[in-house]
């Protein structure tokens, strides 16, 4: 079985832990428990007849005062950058996180998740998504996700899985 390291990064309280929880446990809770350091989850990612073992590193959210610990990002095979669609500040931070990932020795697939889209109108969400897509041209794909409702989560991980294996280039 092939194993891959996936890292989730983004500003604090954007829903990283919730996305993972939705994906791994298929559960969601409104309670906010700030992640300290890193939490690692394991889930096999399946599509068609393929299966890979995902080691998912949930990294504590960055704040203006504290940048994330780059050593956690070493050796990652795939990356999901998460922003809270209702907080523009987190959208602006996307650029910084993507740059950090691109500084690594090899270029790995990066997917952007605009999370909490259950909190706004779909048309508005599409607008924001379009705006982000224009600015970021180095990412593989952008997803509108809702960890609460579950939309977009599975598809996102699946796509990332494919990218990490090298399919769907």
């Amino acid at each position, binding site marked *: 079985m092939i194993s891959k390291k996936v890292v989730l990064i983004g500003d604090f309280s954007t829903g990283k832990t919730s996305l993972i929880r939705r994906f791994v446990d298929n559960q969601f809770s409104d309670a906010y428990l700030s992640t300290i350091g890193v939490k690692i989850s394991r889930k096999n990612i399946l599509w068609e007849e393929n299966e890979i073992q995902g080691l998912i590193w949930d990294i504590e959210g960055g704040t203006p005062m504290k940048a994330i610990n780059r*050593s*956690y990002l070493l050796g990652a095979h795939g990356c999901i950058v998460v922003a809270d669609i209702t907080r523009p500040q987190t959208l602006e931070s996307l650029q910084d996180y993507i740059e950090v990932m691109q500084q690594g020795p090899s270029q790995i697939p990066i997917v952007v998740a605009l999370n909490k889209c259950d909190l706004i109108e779909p048309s508005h969400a599409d607008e924001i998504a379009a705006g982000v897509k224009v600015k970021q041209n180095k990412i593989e794909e952008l997803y509108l996700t809702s960890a609460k409702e579950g939309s977009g989560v599975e598809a996102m991980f699946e796509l990332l899985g494919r990218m990490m294996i090298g399919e769907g280039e």
Partner: protein
Amino acid sequence: MNDFDTLRGLLLHQEKAAISELEHTLATLLKETRDPDLIIEKLTPLFNGLMHHTIENERVQFLETFSPIISDLLKETIQGSTDDIAKVMAPIMGDAIKEQVRTQKDTIVDALYPVMGNMISKYVSGALKDTLDEINAKVQNSFSSTAVKRKIKARIKGVSESELLFQEVHAGEIQTLFLIHKASGLLILQENRNAKIIVEADMVSSMLSAIRSFVNEWIAQSDDTFELNAIDYGDSKIYLEVSGCCYLALMVRGEIRSEMRQNITKVLSEVVEKYGDTISKFNGDTSTLPLGEISSKMKPFFELEDTKVSSPSSSKGLMIVLMMSALLILGAFGYTQYLSYIEEKQEQNILQAFYHTPELNLYRLSVDVNEKEALLEGTVPHERLRIIAESIVEKEEPDLKIDNRIVLTVPVVTPETVYQLLEMLTKVYNSYNSIHVAFNYTNEIVTLKGEVPNSIKFEEMIKYYSEIVGVNKLIIEMRIKPPEINQNITYDIAQSTLNTSQQEIIDLLVKNFDLKNMSTLYEGYRLKLTGYADSSGSLEKNRHLAHKRAENVKHYFVSLGVNNEHVFIDKEMILKSDGRKARAVKIVWEKIDD
């Protein structure tokens, strides 16, 4: 010339000139193109422009043309002048390595890793050996049943006791081994004792990697990166052995021996040397790695001998035997210790006596007391000193037999040895409070200066100094100065006779200073008594009182045997005050002028 030629000449006049000019130019040109030096001269200024132009416009082709040659060029140059190249490269090397360490640390680590381990363990084991020796020495002195057991065990196994000390509780057993890709934290290989597979091995290896990163970020103080070496939990330990591209995590119950630790380092460096490149490119697909080969290298870790503590029943019998023999040994040991303590005390005693004998003090003598016999060894210059040494031993420790092996030597006499002996003797004498003496040694003449308390000592010192081998002439500038008396006898009002306590003071003086032999001891000195009275009452009466006091003191001195001639009564003193000090007799030394 015919008409045709003249016509030709006239018609082609201009052309002729042109032609001859052309001929001239052509000749010059031909000459130039055949002259290599000239060609070079002409082309040189253009050369740079030519190169520049080529590099700018036809870079790729240029490179293609030149690159095959470059490596040959370098080879030639390096072979020819290694030292020069080295000198040129040397200043850059430091920075180059620094840069490499900064950006591609792991590559450097992997390159050096196989060598570093051996380098460091060689150095450390050398340094550690001293520590181990120290520990061993300390351990020798402890004495408990566990200690005895351990000592015996160590002897049987042929291992140093301190190593056994390290594994006192249980011997360490490696339960599980993980080989983990350093950057991503993904598991490469898992090995288990007893084929008990850890279910969430991938999670464990990822978490371990996260912990390593976490600790480094929060605990490392400077830009240095350090490694987590081990994680303790209960009676188990997770050891981490880290290289550039990967690391080993070993779950061990108990402690592993230092030599096992070294083996682990060695095996890891072998794995890194051989498979380092492949491992660093690991992308999560274990089929890309030669797991079988790597696994076979790790298997030996699980073949550790099982040194469990033996079952209770057999150890009990052993304990009893050990206790008995321990007691016996203890008894014998204790007795011999006591004996050697006694002997040591005797030796010390004798050596002290030697030290306090100034003549002997100069010469190195040794005493060894064994089984009631004192063995004397050393060298002295006179037979007389041999005998003195023996007699001292007889006096200090009468019930010892004496084996006198002190030899006579003719000492080598140099100014240095003489000086040393003079120094030593002077030091001994100066250790007495009442003696202050200094010497000067030039041109084989010794001059002695200082103060000596009495004539006996005076004669003695002259004798000993002159006896020092190599002293040919001795000039004495010493003088006898009796030790201070500073004694006052104080009286009550109107008292002039001596009471018992006052008499005791005088008794002590006579005894301590041996005043009966004053004439010989303190040649040139006498006692001076001054009587004091206070001013209360008539002057005449007080004078009389003071004089009487001094007289009575003199009388008493004489009655004790002090020579009358050597006690002199000075003019009495009447003091204005009326305290006790004003009613006294003062006793001091006075030099008798010839």
